[in-house]
């Protein structure tokens, strides 16, 4: 029997971690002479108090879902992909090339090709560290983080040379009108619902589909079975005839592709041109999202929305008070600290508490699917 019931593992512990992070953040806010309760109210209201807030929250969440899923699938194979940032940058290059090169007549045609372009470029960027890890044992944490810098430099180079649009700014030309993705305001407006003008767009639906697809892949297909088995024990994987090189490669390709898909939301959906920095740390937030979501697509979705709300709420906080935006980075860091590094601090007392109250072995648990 597992030490904790499923619901406590997936819901209670993250919740407690979050509350602890908020309490400590509140202390920090109080320390700089602000009212933490007022700050919290502004943040919550700013994030989910209006369709404007929701639009931005879910727009950010869409980015984090993609990068979170990217980290999550790698975690299942016990690979720590911290190169989501660079893979997303390359993905944005792929998406931009697709959008710039063809005069698209309609977004419904442009989107699938952009998905392909972003995915392929992101996957390609993950392929090299994956190959080095699988065949040479070069540690993927080191190689992926180095590839982040290379990606960033590559993008800057392209934006001041081949892709540069006329003018001062290092950015590409605007994408054609036919590649414009419908925003939430446009989609909901068509069915008579009033929604504020926000960058939230149909990519959100693609992100939801990606969650479902990843769940299917991990728990319903042979490949997912092999990825999970390899992640738990590489020795056992070899015993079962699972090729470690193949699984490492495939997992990282999928991971890189998911990170690359972030660009259809940020680049194709919002900026509609290629900018120098279009990822804005989402690749790293994805690590926290995957940690907090326990690498499960549903958990990743919930954690992504939460981090989206933190981003948006933080922006509002900056508008309305003198609390600097960096405070949000502090809160995020605390959430990461509590969900990731300090997980055991909450977990082991909770396990003991549960064992004390449960002498009887419980009924077979709900399947973890």
């Amino acid at each position, binding site marked *: 029997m597992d030490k904790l019931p499923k619901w406590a593992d997936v819901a209670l512990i993250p919740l407690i971690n979050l509350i602890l992070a908020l309490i400590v953040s509140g202390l920090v806010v109080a320390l700089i002479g602000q009212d933490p309760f007022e700050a919290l109210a502004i943040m919550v209201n700013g994030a989910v108090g209006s369709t404007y807030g929701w639009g931005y929250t879910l727009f950010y969440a869409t980015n984090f879902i993609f990068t979170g899923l990217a980290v999550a699938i790698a975690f299942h194979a016990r690979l720590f992909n911290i190169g989501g940032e660079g893979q997303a940058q390359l993905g944005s290059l792929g998406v931009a090339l697709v959008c710039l090169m063809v005069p698209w007549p309609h977004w419904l045609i442009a989107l699938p090709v952009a998905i392909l372009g972003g995915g392929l470029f992101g996957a390609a960027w993950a392929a090299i560290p994956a190959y080095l890890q699988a065949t040479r044992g070069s540690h993927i944490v080191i190689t992926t983080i180095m590839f982040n810098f290379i990606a960033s430099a590559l993008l800057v180079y392209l934006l001041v040379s081949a892709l540069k649009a006329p003018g001062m700014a290092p950015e590409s030309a605007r994408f054609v009108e036919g590649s414009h993705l419908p925003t939430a305001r446009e989609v909901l407006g068509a069915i008579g619902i009033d929604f504020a003008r926000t960058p939230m767009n149909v990519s959100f639906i693609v992100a939801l589909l990606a969650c479902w697809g990843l769940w299917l892949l991990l728990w319903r*297909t042979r490949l997912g*079975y092999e990825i999970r088995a390899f992640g738990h024990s590489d020795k056992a994987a070899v015993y*079962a005839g699972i090729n470690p090189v193949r699984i490492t490669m495939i997992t990282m390709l999928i991971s890189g592709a998911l990170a690359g898909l972030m660009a259809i939301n940020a680049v194709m959906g919002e900026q509609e041109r290629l900018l120098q920095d279009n990822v804005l740390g989402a690749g790293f937030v994805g690590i926290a999202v995957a940690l907090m979501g326990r690498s499960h697509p549903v958990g990743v979705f919930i954690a992504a929305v939460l981090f989206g709300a933190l981003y948006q709420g933080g922006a509002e906080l900056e508008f309305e008070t003198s609390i600097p935006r960096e405070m949000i980075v502090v809160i995020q860091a605390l959430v990461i600290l509590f969900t990731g590094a300090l997980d055991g601090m909450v977990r082991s007392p909770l396990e003991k508490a549960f064992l004390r109250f449960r002498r009887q072995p419980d009924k077979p648990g709900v*399947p973890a699917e």
Partner: protein
Amino acid sequence: MTAPAIELKGISKSFGPVQANKDIAIRVMPGTIHGIIGENGAGKSTLMSILYGFYKADTGEIFIRGERTEIPDSQAAIRAGIGMVFQHFKLVQNFTVLENIVLGAEDGALLKGSLSKARTLLKQLSEEYELHVDPDAKIEDLGVGMQQRVEILKALYRRADILILDEPTGVLTPAEADHLFRILEGLKREGKTIILITHKLREIMETTDTVSVMRRGEMTATVKTAETTPQELAELMVGREVLLRVDKQAATPGETVLNVENLQVVDGSGVERLRGISLNVKRGEILGICGVAGNGQSELLEVLGGMRPGKGRVTVNGQELDLTGAESDARTRRRRGIAHVPEDRQEEGLIMDFFAWENVAFGYHDDARYQRGAMMNNDAIREDAEAKIAKFDVRPANCWLKAKNFSGGNQQKIVIARELERNPDLLLVGQPTRGVDIGAIEFIHEQIVALRDAGKAVLLVSVELDEILSLSDRIAVIFDGRIMGERLPSETDERELGLLMAGITDTDKDHSVDEIEENLAHATGKAG
């Protein structure tokens, strides 16, 4: 009447809902060898950990030499004169024997004084108890038997007069084990008290004065060894009558299934693990491979099971196996009718975090019957798992439990069920009953014999000589990556096998333990 060296009263210890020790009472008289026997998970190790200060008992009292003693940590245990020799030695590999003995018990900031004092004491001890060890040898150059002696010396150097040994013979050849027991006898004569934890009935019968039996956390009996029988002890351990010998008919070998010629394996660091092995296994026959752990038997199983590359010629049913190329993986081996029960079920045979039903498909997960289009047919796997769990009496019979939540014996039953139900032509099986309770051992042995009787070939690797002798139809002894010889179980005995296991082929002559030790150390030293 003298006070008992150790007396425990009403010791209980729970880990959450699991009660590892229930109201244990035990008296160990000074100057005796007291055996503690029980199945895996019976609570022996927990009890000893309480005595050595690793765990704190929930209730109960400890008396040492009649005095009530609190043992909050191992330092306190050492002060109370208790020494412990663990199953896995705790020695610094690149230190000398002397340095290891002094480590943690130095007299002052300068080592020199402690070392010379230790040297004198060591000399005295080794003369007294036949505990001969070269004080200046490095641990990494010593064989396991020698390392164990260092552990004992470490305890004696700390003035232990109560010595606890946890499964001390697991890694020893029979001759080394005999020597260890002679040492223990010597210690006993000097008035030391010894507690011997083991699951081997024979050792209990041969060496102890009294024996306590543990079952499911309780002390079920304490008896004088001279007044009991192995049969009675086994029943006390399991709680029902058990068969101690495997019941099997003579083999009727058919044509050759597995033929191995000049098989060589070099591991990742360039060390030769197999140096040209040739053997064959026929239909309806169990070939047992015995040897001291680390002499190449694991590599033999792994290369045949498709887990590592090798060189040489191996045929199964006359068809040659690919040993290095694209077809050398475990998946292809399974398609060729080779099933593999690996030596380490927790690291290899099972995914501990997978449900039982997921594990039933492990290795066979690409079978057509487990697929439904592009997806896996989880319903079909669960149905299959339920049937296998019922047939092999896996307990609890719940395919939604994770593998890690089953006991060792039931984990092994899951592996055996998965591999045997494929009806393979050749079964590779390593340490089938390691860490498995007696009741399950009996069942697993029956299943292996049944497979043989169904006309299949079985290659058995085990470090348990008893198991090799009782299951095998033919025995091959492996030493330093070579087969030292083949024997029929009816025409050999433990003494002869033990010498072969140490690489000594002129088995008619007498050989000293030191000679055996040296041979083994030479082999393992080279390998390591």
